[in-house]
């Protein structure tokens, strides 16, 4: 009925899914129960053999994330007031400033976290959701790797929001220098949360189910 675990990573092993065996497994704790149960008998998590609305939810969260990402780049992230001079910096502006100071390493970190990761995430989630609408012939291992990267890396985009919070809390020297947060900080944080939810709504089992064999 089921494979023994002693089979250690044998790709060609004939694997049966819980669904094919008339069972449903809990994605949180791994407990297996009868197909048709709605709650895990162990951890009480919601059980779904497959999430039929998964892709719709992914698109919805992703579009929300995209909408929030636009103002996050247009409006200022930081507003610095130094000796009566008001200076506004956007996300990309902040990266350029860092380059001017010669802090290339940190500029790279901020650029990767705030630009490369979010944009890459939109592209990868969009690509996966597009491919998985119907059966496909692509290597599921590769698709799954994409998905894992997105799920693992997405939360690191939050770096810039924390940087703003720290700078605002520390730089309060009255007229000498003050830093205030810009509206882009809120938009950017929302965008990260929405794309994290998009990645979490993704039912990874779809990747493995929809392989067109042969």
């Amino acid at each position: 009925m089921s494979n023994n675990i002693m089979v250690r990573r044998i790709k060609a092993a004939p694997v049966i899914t819980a669904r094919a065996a008339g069972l449903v497994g809990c994605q949180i704790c791994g407990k297996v129960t009868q197909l048709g149960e709605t709650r895990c008998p162990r951890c009480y998590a919601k059980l779904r053999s497959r999430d039929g609305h998964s892709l719709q939810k992914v698109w919805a969260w992703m579009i929300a994330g995209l909408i929030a990402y636009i103002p996050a780049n247009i409006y200022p992230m930081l507003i610095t007031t130094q000796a009566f001079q008001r200076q506004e910096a956007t996300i990309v502006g902040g990266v350029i400033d860092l380059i001017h100071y010669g802090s290339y390493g940190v500029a790279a970190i901020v650029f990767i976290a705030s630009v490369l990761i979010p944009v890459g995430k939109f592209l990868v989630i969009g690509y996966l959701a597009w491919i998985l609408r119907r059966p496909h012939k692509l290597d599921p291992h590769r698709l799954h790797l994409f998905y894992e990267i997105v799920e693992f890396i997405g939360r690191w985009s939050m770096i810039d929001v924390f940087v703003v919070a720290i700078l605002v809390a520390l730089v309060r020297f009255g007229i000498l220098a003050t830093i205030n947060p810009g509206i882009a900080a809120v938009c950017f944080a929302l965008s990260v949360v929405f794309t994290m939810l998009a990645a979490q709504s993704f039912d990874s089992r779809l990747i493995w189910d929809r392989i067109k064999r042969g």
Partner: protein
Amino acid sequence: MSRDNDLVICPVCDSLYRVNAADRTRPARCGQCGYRLVLGKPDAIASVVGMALAAAILMAVVVFTPFLQLTAGTFTSRASVLDVVLAFQSDIMVPLSISVLAFIVLLPLARFAFLTYALMPAVFDRAPLPGAAVSLRWAFQLKPWAMAEIFMVGVAVALVKLSGMATLTMGPAFWAFVAVVLLNAYGDALMCRTTLWSAVSKPRP
């Protein structure tokens, strides 16, 4: 069937496996997708609980002591983690303040509490407390939202940005936070799902 306690699914691809007590001692991956089903760390529970308790205590140091101090000429400003959290005070920024508080303090703390509650009895060979499994579920589900380690990278970036204009001094909270992040990473590396879940699902009398 639900009575078969050895059956386990791979959460990634839904493959079905039978994992008996002997299998829990050796690492194993899913044959289909390669997910690490068993980390093979049956003794990890005590370390996970120890990590959670130590990190929770250090979190108190983080919240109540100075985090960073900035000196520029005759001006000095001191910020605790709570000041950082309250940085977004003006009207629409308030929800952001609350989220930052949750991401860097509340959710990591909640995870430490859930882990301790769920697994502490197992360390002393006692039956799990009521709701232990639900508690452990929350510890797993909150993981992506607890962002202490990301905050630490943010601190590093902020330090570089400020290094030109002022002198920075790290307070006790800073070092406590570093310790929390390291402990947390160590604990997460030991969190073998198969081992932890079998600890909270001992058969009831």
